[in-house]
């Protein structure tokens, strides 16, 4: 692999590349870029029960999205295996903050102290993975979109509902960062 692929991509390369998925999906099939809808489509496909919310034609509405998300998984696999190992070079200030929380392994894309099968049996691992995952699924379904659907597609379309949602994303994120994580991970 060429060196540019393995080097840290500057923000002004990564950002516009992500933004281009909006016109690409519209040009291909008039589809709105978003990821979280796939969770509801999968629910509708495998366990709709008698819930009216899930009684719709998921193939027509969301098969494209499920295939796109399958691609995201494959892309993650290929990019991490074809490229060199990634060590995320976060700022010194963040290292210091995380060190105070007891995070000392900065290799890879997520800390081993929290995101291994073994850590799942600890309170901080369980909350990070299981509780966090649940809130991601519940919250994006309630808000009808996630970072891609609201923060990128929605804001690009100048939609007020998306701005409200994005303010919520950061309000929730900051609350967890300052009021939950220091106690959960750091035990401060």
């Amino acid at each position, binding site marked *: 692999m060429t060196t540019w692929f393995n080097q840290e991509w500057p923000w002004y390369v990564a950002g516009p590349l992500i*933004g281009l998925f909006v016109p690409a999906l519209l040009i291909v099939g*008039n589809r709105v870029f978003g990821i979280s809808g796939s969770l509801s489509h999968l629910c509708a496909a495998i366990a709709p029960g008698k819930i009216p919310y899930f009684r719709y034609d998921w193939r027509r509405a969301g098969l494209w999205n499920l295939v796109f998300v399958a691609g995201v998984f494959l892309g993650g696999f290929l990019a991490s295996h074809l490229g060199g190992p990634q060590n995320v070079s976060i700022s010194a200030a963040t290292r210091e903050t995380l060190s105070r929380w007891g995070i000392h392994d900065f290799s890879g894309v997520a800390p081993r102290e929290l995101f291994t099968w073994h850590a799942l049996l600890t309170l901080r691992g369980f909350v990070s993975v299981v509780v966090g*995952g*649940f809130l991601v699924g519940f919250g994006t379904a309630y808000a009808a979109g996630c970072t891609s659907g609201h923060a990128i597609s929605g804001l690009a379309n100048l939609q007020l509902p998306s701005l409200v949602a994005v303010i919520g994303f950061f309000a*929730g994120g900051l609350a*967890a960062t300052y009021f939950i994580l220091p106690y959960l991970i750091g035990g401060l």
Partner: protein
Amino acid sequence: MTRTLQQFHGCGAEAEADSPHRPALLPVYLALGILFGTVLTRSEVLSWFRIQEMFHFQSFRMYGIIGSAVVTAALSLALLKGLRVSSVSGESISVPPKRLGRGIRYAVGGTIFGLGWALTGACPGPLVALIGNGVTVMTVALLSALVGAWVYGWMSPKLPQ
């Protein structure tokens, strides 16, 4: 099909134009997904460390990425609308607007997602890409997210919108 998508007020699906399902385009969506997973990985957007750095305001990087993504998307969207471009599938390109209503679902739902975003260090796209990256325990987070979406669907008639 028991109801049309216009009647359906669901997660991502309500944002969908009622475009017909075209199986021939599926390989294109798969290819675009692979590209997106690659970008999420190599740009480190999927990293828990980057998300912590962002929420601590200790680097401009994530804000630069999200900001320039929005600007790029907005400019290309305006261009597509202005030129009245049709999609390859033959439809006129449009992004169906979301209705604000009282806005409760966006404010409350958004905040709940935000909590989960900081706890897992991942939004839905990165969650899937992380599994591909070998952080296999994220399959549990993904299953949990699926349960979360299901519980929302079950509770939705009783939740303020």
